[in-house]
C-alpha cells in the first residue's frame, strides 16, 4: 500500500564525480573542493585575525586565543609536558583542519564530511605515524623500539607473548585505529543523518502523521553530530599528542 522505502547504495553517499581535471588521476571532486574551502577559511580566519593583535582582545581575537589556549594548555602541556609548546603549531593546525572538515557534515546544503572519505584520515594518521617514529628514534635511538618490544619488569618467558602483540600494536594497530576512528565516526554520522532525512521525506509523502518523529530525531542527531565532530577532532589531536609524548619519554 505504500511505495517501497529504498535506501540508496552506500557508495552513492560518499563517492563524487570529478569537477575538474576529470578522470586524469588527480581530479578534484566534492571532497577535495571542501578540503580547499575549509583550508581557505582556516587561513582567512587565523591569519587575517592574527595580523593586528591587541592587548585587550575582542571579536575574532578571542576565538583565536581560545583555540590556542585550548590546544596549548588542554592538549600539548597536559599530555606532553610544559616544555613542549613547540608542538602546539602542529597540533593546533591538525585540530583546526579536522574540525573544519568535520563541520561540513552539518552545514546545510553541503552536509558531507570530507573526513568520512578514508583518504583524509589515512593521510593524517600516516603523517602522525611517520612523525612519532621519527621523534622516537631521534630522541631515544633504537631504545624506542626495544623499550616497546621488551618492556621492563615483565618475566622473560612472557616476552614470547608480549613482543608480537606490541609489535603489531605499534606497527599496525596504532595508525590504523587512529584513522579508522575518525573515518568511522564521521561515516556513521553521515549515514545516520542521510537515513533520517530520507525517512522524513518518505513519511511526508506516504504517512504525514508520523513525519514529526524522524524530523525531530534528525534535528537532535544533527546537534549530536556537532558534538561528535568536535570530539573526534579533539580525540585525534589528543592521541597524536599521546603518541608524540610516548616517543619523547617512552618510559612513561
Amino acid at each position, binding site marked *: 500500500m505504500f511505495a517501497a522505502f529504498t535506501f540508496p547504495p552506500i*557508495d552513492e553517499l560518499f563517492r563524487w564525480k570529478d569537477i575538474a581535471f576529470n578522470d586524469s*588521476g588527480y581530479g578534484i571532486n566534492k571532497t577535495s573542493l571542501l578540503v580547499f574551502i575549509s583550508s581557505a577559511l582556516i*587561513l582567512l580566519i587565523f591569519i587575517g585575525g592574527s595580523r593586528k*593583535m591587541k592587548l585587550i582582545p575582542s571579536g575574532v581575537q578571542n576565538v*583565536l*586565543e581560545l583555540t590556542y589556549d585550548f590546544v596549548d594548555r588542554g592538549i600539548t602541556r597536559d599530555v606532553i609536558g610544559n616544555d613542549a609548546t613547540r608542538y602546539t*603549531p602542529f597540533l593546533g593546525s591538525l585540530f583546526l583542519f579536522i574540525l573544519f572538515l568535520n563541520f561540513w557534515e552539518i552545514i546545510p546544503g553541503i552536509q558531507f564530511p570530507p573526513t568520512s*572519505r578514508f*583518504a583524509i584520515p589515512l593521510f*593524517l594518521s600516516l603523517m602522525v605515524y611517520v612523525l612519532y617514529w621519527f621523534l622516537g628514534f631521534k630522541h631515544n635511538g633504537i631504545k624506542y623500539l626495544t623499550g616497546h618490544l621488551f618492556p621492563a619488569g615483565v618475566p622473560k618467558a612472557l616476552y614470547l607473548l608480549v613482543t608480537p602483540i606490541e609489535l603489531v600494536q605499534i606497527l599496525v594497530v596504532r595508525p590504523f585505529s587512529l584513522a579508522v576512528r575518525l573515518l568511522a565516526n564521521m561515516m556513521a554520522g553521515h549515514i545516520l543523518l542521510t537515513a533520517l532525512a530520507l525517512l522524513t521525506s518518505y513519511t511526508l509523502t506516504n504517512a504525514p502523521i508520523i513525519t514529526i518523529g524522524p524530523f525531530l530525531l534528525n534535528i537532535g542527531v544533527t546537534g549530536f553530530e556537532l558534538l561528535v565532530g568536535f570530539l573526534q577532532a579533539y580525540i585525534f589531536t589528543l592521541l597524536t599528542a599521546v603518541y608524540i609524548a610516548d616517543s619523547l619519554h617512552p618510559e612513561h
Partner: protein
Amino acid sequence: MLASVLAVAVKAAEAAGEVKAKNPIVPESKEILWASIAFFIVFGLLAWKAWPAIKKSLQDREDKIRGDLEHAESVRTQADKELADYQRQLADSRNEGGRIIEEARQSADQVRKDLIARAEADAAEIRARAQEDAKLATERAMADVQSRVSDLSIELAERIVRHNLDKATQIQLIENYINEVGGTRR
C-alpha cells in the same frame, strides 16, 4: 549437467560482484594528494604567521598583568610602610606632647615650691632682723638709761649730799649701788 549449471551460476555471481561499484572505504589517491597539499599549506602558513602572533599576544598580556600585579604589590607594600611610619610618628609625637606637658607641670610645681620657700625664708629673715633690731634698741636704750640713771643719781646725790662726802667716796658708793641694782636686774 548440475556441474555446468553451478559453474555458470558462480560466474554470474562473480560478474554481478564486478559490476557493483567499488567499496566506499577504499581510499582514493587523488583525494590523498589534494588533502596532503592543503594540509601542508595550512600547517605551514599557520605556523609561520598565525600561531606565533597569537602566542606573542597571550605572552604579552600575561607579562603585562604580571608586571601590573607586581607593581601594585610593591606600591601597596610601600603604602603600608608609610602608613606604619606615619602612625609611629603620630604615637611618638603624642608621647612627646604628654612628656612636655608633664615636664611643664613638674617645673611649674618646682617654681611654686621654690617661690614659697623663698618667701618663707625672706619672711623669717625679716622677722629675725626685726627682733634683732628690737633687741639692740632695747639694749641701747637700757645702756642709755643706765648711764642717765647713774648721771642723774650722781647729780641727785651731789645735790643732796654735796658737802658731806668727797667726790671719790660718793662715786664709790653710787657705783656699788648701781652694780647691785644692775646685778639683780640682769
